[in-house]
């Protein structure tokens, strides 16, 4: 599994996840997302464009992180349009809690809508 994080703007961070997310690889994602929260990130886009496999362990981490973001006054949005993965979100009924959209750009827009006071565009700055 590959994980990369980048700052989208002053308050939004995107975490790009590629490969396969299962019970073996999930702890790495949990550590990365917890690390972002510890550094103060509250508005997180999780971009699953390059993810090919997801099951309930990965879902649990995404839902848990979404809750932590909200507790910190932010939110999380998942970007995914791979058919077999979207099916997992649909069956589990997690599209709403994860603000599921198709692309990372839509996810960032979704978070901006949720956080109206967010200053726009200081893009391209690498977080880690």
């Amino acid at each position, binding site marked *: 599994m590959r994980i990369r994080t980048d700052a989208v703007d002053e308050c939004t961070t995107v975490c790009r996840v590629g490969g*396969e997310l*299962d*019970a*073996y690889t999930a702890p790495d994602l949990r550590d990365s997302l917890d690390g972002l929260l510890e550094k103060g990130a509250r508005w997180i886009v999780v971009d699953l464009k390059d993810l090919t*496999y*997801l*099951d*309930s*362990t990965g*879902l*649990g981490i995404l839902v848990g992180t979404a809750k932590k973001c909200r507790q910190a006054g932010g939110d999380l949005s998942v970007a995914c349009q791979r*058919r*077999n993965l979207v*099916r*997992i979100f649909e*069956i*589990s*009924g997690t599209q709403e809690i994860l603000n599921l959209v198709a692309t990372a750009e839509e996810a960032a827009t979704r978070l901006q809508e949720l956080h109206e006071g967010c200053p726009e565009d200081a893009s391209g700055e690498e977080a880690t």
Partner: protein
Amino acid sequence: MAGKGEHVIEVTLPSRPEYLLVARLATSGVGLRAGLTVDDIEDLKVAVAEACTNVINHAFKKDGGSGGQRIQLRLTAGKGELTVEVEDEGQGFDPEDLKKSQRSGLEGEGGLGFGLMKELTDTFRVESAPGSGTRVIMVKRATR
């Protein structure tokens, strides 16, 4: 014993998360042989991994995860369908507890994994009892 035209593949895996990929690869390879579509196989891979993850997370809890535990995977490829049995010799559980979990929705302890297994396969059955291990039987038929 395999029926006429059936192929049976048995794989024994250590009950450890690093071997989930092997379970998925076996499902994928045998699924192709059984004539399942790519989408069917993607569904079944998740269902099989959920069953194996339950073994890893729950079946040998009382043993303290000492490392000698095994997952038995039995794949029976028929014409246009694949039957997968995931079996362990762990602590088992009362299937009534599973029904209660399912009645309370997909969430809850283990409920999400079982919910996915049920939704992603055509037939799903659990055989278990406290102290007697667990066997999950799933059938996926090829989508026409």
